């Protein structure tokens, strides 16, 4: 359950892949994919995509759930991610010695947890002795339920059958499960994957919650950039859930219950909310009946209502200054529209010209010529694309340079986008690279499965992966200048930085001891 290491890296990668068919290529255009791709919507609403790529006797899959941490109910941040962890714990058939008995035991765990929480959360008159007893009762119930568990059996069966790269991630907008396998395990995979989608069991939940708390400590609490990014987003957004910790605020994660995770599953893991893409040595004519049989087991359910909160227009510049004993860092973001915006490709053009490689403006200006930064880049959208996100830019100062200098230098570069057209060469380079990078991604089963599932889910048609290149080709210099002027204004900006603070004891130390 990798959750967002650098979620935007993945996004940026996809954006590079976006685009469309490369006209010069033989078997890599939309037409060739149309011949190799079969799409089917099952009666329960679930969409299957099969892409035949028989280069080697293997396949990869991507199960794309159109729900992520943005859908966590209020007070339950981190819930989508908690369920993702639960999805590796097995089902009513796998991972248990006796589901009927285990189910009863798990109900007792929930009751014991509720009783403990009720006492723990008492504002007045909490009885510590009673609390300790309730905690013991909870632990006893957990131990009782554990007697029926065959730990990690679900993943064990997958791994023993050759699963490679088995993992999942929860992003703000979606939850994605994936691995690769030898092609002769297709039916086994279909059974495993459809089972956990349709038939998850709330097993070992509270232990796993401890594991997720450790994941948070690793990614966020004990990581300077993790801390900065969490505060940055919380400041940039006042209403929308993009401002909320995706892995969850500690107090909220600590109180998520198995019941809540299963409620989330019931609401969001319904056919209409799921796309499953399979790419590799698979024949659609043989595989489709099989996949229909297994994935047809998933409950239908209505497509969950979309979130209706809209981030209000920002009207005041916001800043976050962290002073601590780590090296300086600078990050800023400007609100921009969601992925459906007609200007979506214009944002991609700006971030490409700003950041892609040693020809990019930020590299040449801040790194090569001014020699004030080790690295500087813009990326967008962040932290998600389904709802209006941010166009973010960061810079890593060289020794002796400050975050404030980064801000000044970045704004000078931004002003150039606002006050002058990009060059013909820059614009053409963006279009050429976007095309080539789309092509480069087509020879990878897992990458292709992820893209097809995402585009099918987001646009209702995987072809958009290719058709988007038309939008890229239509981007003009005037578009770039217009969009830059629209969003790169101080009142739309949130900046966050780390300033290095000397340790209290440092004054006494004579730095440089070996």
């Amino acid at each position, binding site marked *: 359950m*990798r959750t967002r290491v650098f979620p935007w890296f993945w996004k940026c990668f996809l954006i590079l892949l976006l685009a469309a068919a*490369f006209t*010069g*290529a033989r078997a*890599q255009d939309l037409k060739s994919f149309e011949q190799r791709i079969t799409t089917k919507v099952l009666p329960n609403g679930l969409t299957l995509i099969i892409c035949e790529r028989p*280069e*080697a*006797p*293997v396949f990869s899959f991507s199960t794309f759930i159109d729900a992520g941490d943005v859908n966590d109910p209020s007070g339950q941040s981190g819930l989508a991610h908690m369920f993702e962890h639960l999805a*590796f714990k097995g089902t009513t058939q796998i991972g248990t*010695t006796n589901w009927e008995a285990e189910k009863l035991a798990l109900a007792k765990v929930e009751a014991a947890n509720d009783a403990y929480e009720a006492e723990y959360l008492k504002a007045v008159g909490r009885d510590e002795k009673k609390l300790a007893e309730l905690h013991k009762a909870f632990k006893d119930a957990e131990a009782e339920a554990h007697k029926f*568990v*065959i*730990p*990690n*059996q679900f*993943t*064990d069966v997958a*791994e*023993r*059958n*050759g*699963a490679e*790269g*088995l*993992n*999942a991630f929860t992003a703000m907008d979606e939850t994605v499960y994936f691995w690769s396998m030898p092609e*002769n*395990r297709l039916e086994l995979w279909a059974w495993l994957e459809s089972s956990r989608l349709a038939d998850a069991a709330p097993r070992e939940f509270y*232990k796993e*919650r*401890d*594991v997720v708390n*450790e*994941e948070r*400590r*690793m990614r966020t*609490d*004990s990581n300077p950039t993790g801390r900065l990014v969490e505060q940055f987003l919380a400041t940039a957004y006042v209403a929308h859930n993009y401002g909320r910790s995706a892995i969850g605020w500690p107090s909220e994660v600590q109180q998520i219950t198995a019941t809540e995770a299963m409620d989330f599953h019931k609401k969001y893991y319904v056919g209409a909310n799921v796309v499953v893409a399979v790419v590799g*040595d698979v024949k659609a004519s043989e595989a489709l009946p099989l996949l229909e049989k297994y994935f047809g087991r998933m409950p239908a359910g209505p497509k969950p209502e979309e979130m209706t909160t809209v981030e209000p227009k920002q009207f005041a510049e916001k800043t976050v200054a962290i002073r*601590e*004993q*780590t*090296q300086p860092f600078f990050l800023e973001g400007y609100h921009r529209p969601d992925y459906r915006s007609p200007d979506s490709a214009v944002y991609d053009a700006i971030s490409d010209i700003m950041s892609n490689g*040693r020809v990019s403006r930020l590299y040449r200006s801040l*790194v090569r010529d001014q*020699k004030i930064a080790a690295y500087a880049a813009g990326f967008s959208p962040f932290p998600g694309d389904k709802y209006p996100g941010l166009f973010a830019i960061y810079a*890593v100062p060289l*020794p002796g340079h400050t975050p404030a200098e980064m801000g000044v230098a970045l704004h000078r570069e931004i002003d150039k986008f606002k006050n002058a057209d990009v060059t013909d060469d820059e614009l053409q*380079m963006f279009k*050429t*690279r976007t*095309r080539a*990078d789309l*092509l*480069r991604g087509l020879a990878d089963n897992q990458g292709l499965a992820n893209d097809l599932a995402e585009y099918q889910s987001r646009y209702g048609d995987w072809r958009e992966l290719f058709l988007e290149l038309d939008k890229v080709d239509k981007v003009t210099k005037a578009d770039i200048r217009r969009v830059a002027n629209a969003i790169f204004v101080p009142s739309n900006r949130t900046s966050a930085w780390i300033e290095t603070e000397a340790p209290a004891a440092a004054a006494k130390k004579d*730095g*440089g*001891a*070996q």
Partner: protein
Amino acid sequence: MKRISGISMVLAIAALALAPSTLHAQQSKPWEQIPTPKLHDFKPQQPKRIELKNGIVLFLQEDHELPFVTGWVLIPGGSRDEDAAKIGVVSLYGQAWRTSGTAKLNGDALDDLLEAKAAHISTWGDEDSTGIYWNSLKQDADQVFSLTLDLLLHPVFSADKLDLAQQQEASGIVRRNDDEGEIAGRESAKLVYGANSPYARQPELATIGAVTVDDLKAWHDRTLGGKLIVGVLGDFDPAAMEAKLRAAFEALPAVKPEPERHDSFADPKPGLYFIDKEDVNQSNIEIVGLGTDRHNPDVPALAVMNEILGGGFASRLFQKVRTELGFAYAVSGSYGYDWDHPGEFRAMAMTKSATTVDATKATLAELNGLTTKPFTAEELARAKDNILNSFLFKYDTRSKVLWEHLHLEFNGYPSDYLESYKAGIEKVTTADLDRVAKKYIHPEKLAILVVGNGPEIKPGLDELKMGAPQPIDITIPMPKQPEEKKQ
């Protein structure tokens, strides 16, 4: 093993093995009723190997799926061979080589030319090699190859680009204590190999500051005479490509043999080491010792042992430390083997400050268990299934097959190494596991490093009964005369 992958980090239990089947029989195992058909026939395409008269070796791997051509030139010699007073020179070389460019076309102009074609040429400097990489659309392949060749044979090294690389490197040095995982990995490697070992030493501001343009030129002239290995992959005509590569490389002088290495390796000084970091709420625990190399005939048995110890969700460490105890998200362990020198025996776990001692004990118990808790037939079968059923992912793309051959050639292994390794895995028995565990696993020889928030670690590390933890000073030495240039 990756530290940050999620779900798939480590595990173990032997749940099936330990659970008496009469008590824990599942009513049915529907997945076992699902047939496993015969795998489609598959003979991975092998690259064509050509050894030139001067000793340079070429590998050609056709792949016509996409209209790209990609290539690599591997050059023996890397940071482990650099002068101790100039640690970091190879890394600087790897950057400045490409950014400086050639007499005909400087690095910036090269960037402009290539990026307009969505093409890439890059250079690198690693522990045991340097090299050059190129990639372009087929239509640009001839031009990009000749640019690559020019950069390989006629580089200029500019003071300005060295300066840029030095500043980048300096930024990495001053930032190296910000992330506790980075600290733990680096400092534990020093415990394994020794702080001054070519396999663990680190660049300092003073050592990178001492590097000159002449050092880069000298490095280039010296290593270019070594045994170059060239690999090309993609959409090309093999006869034409072979002719082109021959024309380019046959004219070079006969390769000089690599000098013998005289590294010395010893077990770490056992004990408990500690690095205090006040801005974290999680401890990074590393338990480390010396591993072995791939020439060791016990490697297949060790690979199976590693799978049982830390290889997947069902491994012992994952099952105990993560699933059962909930102590860690990231936990792993393996007895490492490198191509031509001993790897590291390393177990790690990241846990909240308060469970540092318990998680350390639990991890150590699993290491001890390798010699005290007999390997079961079920564990052996699972580990073999895990390794063998996913084995084809080592060669499911033509690029992976090519890279396997490049590695083997570079390190002097026979080209059928992967097959004999696989055959070795198939033959491993529980007796082999017991034997290698007794031979290689000596927990008393291991060093334990904890990086964490001292005041928060309660119970304290003294509970481990290993004496007072020895502090490691990670202060970054600042040169007396700051090397950074003023604007």
